């Protein structure tokens, strides 16, 4: 059977293939005239797609990412989003009904009581019957709207008792940290990684601007899982329109949402609570994979070399990781907060404030000789992650590390 739904990976669109084909036909028809007329007549007679309406309107989004000039919702990937779309359609029916009715009455009033046709206006003060009718009937309409609305609202608020996995999404300025804590025992460090946006200069062909990240959240499809959302600094919001999810990340609070993605694919979202200057540059990408691929993908996220060796030519705070290929190990790990040094006075330990920014974790490059500095960047640059590259540029680090080093690092020739 011919597949009417052309599959895409990255921007899945399932309902759009035939619609897109019909839209192309309509657009071609504009150029060729006669074809479009036949097509319009055909769709009006059979009412199967009503694409002639869609062709007249602006572009309707049919992907799992925001589209330019988007008018409608993105394709639903979860039952929650499908419920939201259905509720919107239910309410829109009443909106159209009232809009057409009011416009009709308005136009007819303007027609009948035009000053040339009706020079002497009537002096009507009140009409009891019509006032009763126009009070009762509009009050019935919200009742029809409220029933599906409350049904959806309460079903969205239902707490899933036994989610398959729990993922923590922590908002930072201006990146996200995801933790998979289900795969380690209580004394082990959970699988944690940062998710930074890919800068425009580093985008590859086919990637979306301001939507791509270096590390995606990998989740299993057709599985109910839970996401706990919080923030480390200012309020953020974790939003993925395809999944019908928008959850505020409030510092000092854990908000929980349950999701069940029904199809494999890649779903894009953006931060939805103003959080500073780079609020528009903290997207979210959720990649739903099959159950059997999920284990493989999570396993690949685990660090390969948990204990990196230290180069004696440099201070101990700069471990050089010698491994082939790209490493997910951070050569500048945060201090271990779980095991602080014991105090002599017996007072409780105050955990050291972790170095949040790269420039706080770099060695004092100004005290190094030029050879040491070049050697440092030669060894470090190849392991530098995109998020750190962005950090350096964002915080204008070039005055600290020097033009030459920065040029070397950018060119990646070392």
């Amino acid at each position, binding site marked *: *059977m011919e*597949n009417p*739904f052309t*599959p*895409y*990976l990255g921007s*899945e669109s*399932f*309902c759009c293939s*035939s619609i897109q084909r019909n839209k192309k036909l309509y657009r071609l028809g504009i150029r060729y005239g006669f074809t479009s007329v036949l097509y319009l007549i055909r769709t009006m007679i059979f*009412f*199967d*797609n*009503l694409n002639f*309406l869609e062709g007249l309107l602006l572009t309707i989004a049919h992907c799992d990412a925001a589209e330019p000039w988007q008018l409608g919702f993105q394709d*639903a990937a979860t039952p929650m989003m*499908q419920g939201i*779309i*259905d509720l919107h*359609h239910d309410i*829109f*029916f*009443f909106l*159209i*009904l*009232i*809009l*057409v*009715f*009011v416009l*009709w*009455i308005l136009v*007819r009033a303007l027609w*009948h009581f035009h000053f040339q*046709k*009706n*020079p*002497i206006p*009537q002096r009507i003060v009140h009409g009891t019957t*019509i006032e009763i009718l126009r009070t009762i009937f509009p009050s019935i309409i919200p009742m029809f709207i409220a029933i599906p609305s409350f049904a959806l609202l309460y079903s969205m608020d239902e707490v899933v008792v036994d989610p398959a996995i729990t993922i923590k999404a922590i908002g930072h300025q201006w990146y996200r940290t995801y933790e998979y804590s289900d795969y380690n025992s209580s004394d082990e460090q959970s699988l944690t990684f940062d998710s930074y946006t890919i800068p425009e200069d580093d985008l590859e062909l086919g990637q979306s601007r301001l939507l791509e990240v270096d590390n995606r959240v990998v989740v299993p499809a057709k599985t109910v899982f839970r996401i706990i959302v919080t923030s480390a600094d200012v309020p953020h919001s974790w939003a993925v329109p395809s999944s019908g999810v928008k959850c505020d990340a409030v510092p000092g609070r854990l908000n929980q949402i349950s999701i069940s993605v*029904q*199809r*494999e*694919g890649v779903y894009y979202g953006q931060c939805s609570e103003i959080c500073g200057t780079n609020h528009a540059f903290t997207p979210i990408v959720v990649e739903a994979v*099959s159950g059997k691929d999920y284990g493989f993908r999570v396993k690949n996220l685990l660090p390969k070399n948990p204990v990196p060796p230290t180069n004696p030519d440099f201070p101990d705070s700069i471990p050089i990781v010698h491994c082939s290929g790209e490493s997910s190990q951070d050569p500048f790990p945060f201090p271990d907060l779980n095991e602080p040094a014991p105090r002599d006075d017996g007072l409780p330990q105050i955990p050291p404030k972790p170095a949040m920014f790269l420039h706080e974790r770099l060695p004092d490059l100004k005290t190094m000789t030029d050879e040491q500095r070049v050697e440092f960047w030669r060894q470090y640059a190849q392991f530098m992650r995109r998020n750190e590259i962005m950090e350096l540029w964002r915080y204008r680090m070039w005055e600290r590390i020097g033009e030459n080093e920065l040029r070397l690092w950018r060119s990646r020739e070392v």
Partner: protein
Amino acid sequence: MAGPHRIGHAVTQGPNVVKEIIYGITLGLIAGGLWKIHHWNNQRRTKEFYDLLEKGEISTVVEGE
């Protein structure tokens, strides 16, 4: 002397309010019905998509080469 001038008042039937309301509601229902047809079409397409996905006839994953 001219006869008394009579000022003719325009006598119109005026619109029938009930009829206009009925016409308006009918048009509103037709427009709403068109929207409902669009909604049902979307639901049917979605159901078809997920049925085909369940059967394995289509996939949202690009086959590896």
